[in-house]
């Protein structure tokens, strides 16, 4: 039960953290000329940063929206089922009385 309640929160936290990391990486890359660093310096770190940033963007723009929708839809379903179960339990108790 506890794990189910933590689901949407954990997803939201993951998304927020990814957004922050993405924001930081974007600024780090924008602060210098990426082409110069890659072409001239053969800077492996910059290449890795570019790959990481693009990977995170693909996740944020392509995967995350559907995932967030799924988490929301699932938690709504769970809440609805739990509400229905609680209501029927209450009805049963009333009838027993």
């Amino acid at each position, binding site marked *: 039960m506890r794990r189910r309640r933590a689901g949407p929160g954990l997803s939201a936290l993951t998304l927020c953290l990814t957004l922050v990391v993405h924001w930081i990486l974007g600024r780090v*890359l924008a602060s210098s*000329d990426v082409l110069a660093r890659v072409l001239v310096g053969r800077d492996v770190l910059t290449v890795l940063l570019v790959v990481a940033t693009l990977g995170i963007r693909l996740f944020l723009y392509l995967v995350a929206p559907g995932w967030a929708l799924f988490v929301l839809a699932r938690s709504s379903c769970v809440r609805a089922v739990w509400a229905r179960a609680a209501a029927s339990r209450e009805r049963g108790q009333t009838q027993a009385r």
Partner: protein
Amino acid sequence: MSPARPSSVSARVVLGIGCVSIGLLLVPRWLCGREADRYFDGDLETQDALARSVARSVGSQSGRHFYHTKSTRFDGQSAIAIYQMTIMGLAQIILQHPERRDAYLGAMDRAAEHLVDPKTLDYAASVYGQHGLNRLDTTQGHAYLGYINLALGMLRAVDGSTRFAALHDRLSAALAERLKRAPNGLIETYPGETWPPDVAAVAGSVGLHARVTGVDRRALLDAWAKRFAACAVSRSGYLVQRVRTGSCVPADAPRGSGTAVAAYFIGFAAPELAAQLQSALRREGERSLLGFSAIREYAPGYAGRGDTNAGPVLFGVSVGATGFALGAARLHGDRELYRNLFRTLYLFGVPADIRGERTFAIGGTLGNALLLAMLTARRP
């Protein structure tokens, strides 16, 4: 009593597939395409944010060159491209928003000063013996001068009294004469190297000069366009990237990067031919998925790994062809293609807004200058 299990595994899978599908089909295209129409419609605030970033980046450069690789050719050509595209992009914004003229003119003038400095492209002097600007009465090609002349034309379109006007007149006359004499409509860029996209820049610059000065070169450019198309445009409609000097024999495949940049340049000289190139990009080149488009580098039936003109080629589409096609799409009023290409640029270009300036973090100074010109492309 514990409640019934809220959902079975299969229900969760169906829900998951449905959500991911809806998320993929609707959200990314909306998220990445929000600014496309603002750029296409020439929204000043949107264009200005990128323009200020490019102008600052170019203006803060201490030397002539931006990149110091072991290739003097790349260093010189990339500097020429940066100065040229910066001038073109800023001028295109001024043409749409004349109130920005005073803000940009200084940066344009400084860029033009570097552009006409023979030391910026000293590679040309090393292979020809002297830079083309130092001897305009030669019969040699020097087609790289087209890039310089295009920028001078755009500068003149927004500043009729520019100090480069006389040079612009002389250079345009010399290049027009070379095009007139070229049997196939092609001239060399460097000794033994004939690149049709460079010749497109030459013709575009002559056409732009005619537009801004009123000199009538219609007949010359119409005749040139026919010879050029017969020699360098392939059956697919793509432009051949390189031909053997003095002939129409291809030395490289028909390529998307060359076709797209030529569709932009030739738009200033021979709009019908430019529209044909643009429609070939749309017909043969556009690859689309979920509202994101990119342009294939090689015409159908050809393959390769690209080069510095194309940038990285992934899954057959190239960064160069896709970026330049933005300019061709805007110049030809193709909003849908522009929007689809812009989404791809937004996703992979890593836009960053810092202190009111827009930078595409992946592009560096070269990429941002090119994008400024392409995103704001228009005729005077």
